[in-house]
């Protein structure tokens, strides 16, 4: 689902990546408005936890819901977040706001931008399946704080996280796509 002004292309690419790598069926839901209720006047940013709470209340049948937003997200203790998810919960949110630029300034190519968005989305959705940050260098669950860190991450899970994910699918009785 997208909230506000998120491009059609990035939405489709994220959905395709989730479907491919997580091996789960993905629906693209109709767009909704920018979540003004989550806007903080003080910080001029959007409160990620409030968005998650709203998403989790959705009456749609989907076991997991990911929202893509273009506005900047924060949680009260942190200056900003690329995305946020309920650990072992239903909702996740990803912001494209900080993904378009390099840390040292200047824009990135569209390809890089799409890849970053897909990585953050995968990372956050995996949190909803109880996965926590991983210490393996070659794993998408590794903690990344800057956009340049994101570029270092691979677009796949390490074997441990893969195994945890499999286990979580079974636990939550998630129907996977046929191989």
């Amino acid at each position, binding site marked *: 689902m997208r909230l506000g002004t998120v491009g059609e292309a990035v939405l489709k690419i994220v959905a395709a990546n989730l479907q491919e790598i997580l091996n789960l069926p993905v629906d693209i839901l109709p767009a909704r408005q920018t979540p003004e209720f989550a806007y903080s006047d003080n910080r001029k940013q959007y409160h990620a936890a409030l968005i998650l709470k709203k998403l989790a209340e959705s009456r749609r049948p989907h076991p997991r819901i990911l929202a893509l937003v273009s506005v900047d997200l924060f949680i009260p203790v942190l*200056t900003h977040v690329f995305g946020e998810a309920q650990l072992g919960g239903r909702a996740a949110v990803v912001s494209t706001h900080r993904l378009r630029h390099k840390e040292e300034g200047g824009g990135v190519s569209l390809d890089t931008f799409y890849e970053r968005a897909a990585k953050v989305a995968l990372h956050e959705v995996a949190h909803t399946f109880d996965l926590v940050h991983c210490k393996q260098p070659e794993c998408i669950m590794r903690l990344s704080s800057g956009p340049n860190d994101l570029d270092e991450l691979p677009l796949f899970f390490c074997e441990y996280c893969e195994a945890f994910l499999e286990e979580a699918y079974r636990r939550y009785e998630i129907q996977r796509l046929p191989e």
Partner: protein
Amino acid sequence: MANKVSILVVDDELVIRESLQGWLRRSGYQVDTADGGSAALAMLDKTPYDLLFLDIMMPVMSGIEVLEMVKEDYPQTLVVMITAYGSVDTAVEAMKGGANDYLMKPFDPDQLSLLTEKLMQQKKLLDENIFLREQMAEATRFENLVGSSAAMQELFGMIQDVAATDSSVLIGGETGTGKELVAKAIHAKSARCNGPFIAINCGGFPEHLLESELFGHERGAFTGAHRAKKGRLDLAHHGTLFLDEVGTVPIKMQVDLLRVLETKKFHRVGGTSEIEVDFRTIAASNRDLSQAIEKGEFRQDFFYRLNVISLHIPPLRDRRDDIPLLANHFLERYRRETNKNIDTIVKEAMAILREYDWPGNVRELENAIERAVVICKRRRLGPEEFTFLTLQTSPTARTYSLEETQIAHLREVLKEFDWNITKAAQALEINRVTLHKKIKKYDLRPHRASS
């Protein structure tokens, strides 16, 4: 991968607690929250958190106050102070108060993850360090002598000096002061350290058994001696012989022992061949031997033989400054033995320990700490764990036996009346003859009370 690091977030604002908890949980940490200082301290009492995120600005109890208590009672828990933007002064104050770092709200995610990683590394090193130190202490067991007081420092110096010689040493000191530990330390630092350290408690054997224990016996030397047996003198060859409670050695055997000490030769009981041995003698006594000499209970020549060098260990009540050090030393030992997470002894409890008179000296202190560790259900030893010391009759010493109660009572009354039998008998409301009979029956003597 999930790790078992446990973190406590202390902040009065729910949103901060929740968002920090959520973020840390996603990194695989075990995270709990507390909404204020007292709640946090109560939780710390039960769980050994590795890391504390502590807000400086909180109503009721400020973060700085909480920090002070945490650093005092749970020194192994690392603390990161959370400050509001622009209050660097308080953060600096917190760092001086022992905080490990501080973060300004809202944190940069980069900063937070780096800091958490760094502190966990630090914690790992700290734990490793403690582990290594424990191993070291284990390896050098004789260093179990603990004390920073001037008296003990002097004693340590003496041990070093004495160890270098091969002369006989006589160690004096009340029961429980650690005479055997000192003897072991002398042995361990001496040239004989690779030889055996053979200890014998001379007060622990009836006369004839002490003889065969010391000298050994040949087969058939007496009824029941089915096999030849090596004595402790034999076993001490090339090592150190430690004669504990030497004041209880009967006069006759003092002569025999004196001869052995002088010639380094002896016969086993019932044996004819002479055995040559080479050992160093260390003796210990809690009695004043010069008084025993005056009374004719101890031979002067034997005394001079033993007392080439004399060391005196002061009673614990004369070196109260060592009590905290010793108490922590024993806490460490029993914590490890019982596998309990007990970090410290709180101030009030330490005050009780310092006040108490410790008639049983270090051994009594050790027993008190062991007992407290065993009964303690929290992470700190508090005054309630030591109530048995403040009671007049401690439950450990209390006896239910009518006879023993009677003996103790007789001793007390006799002492009170300075052994005036007539007055004591009047006070006891029994006649003098009965009291005399009881004194005889229970072998009560004026000097017993002091030993």
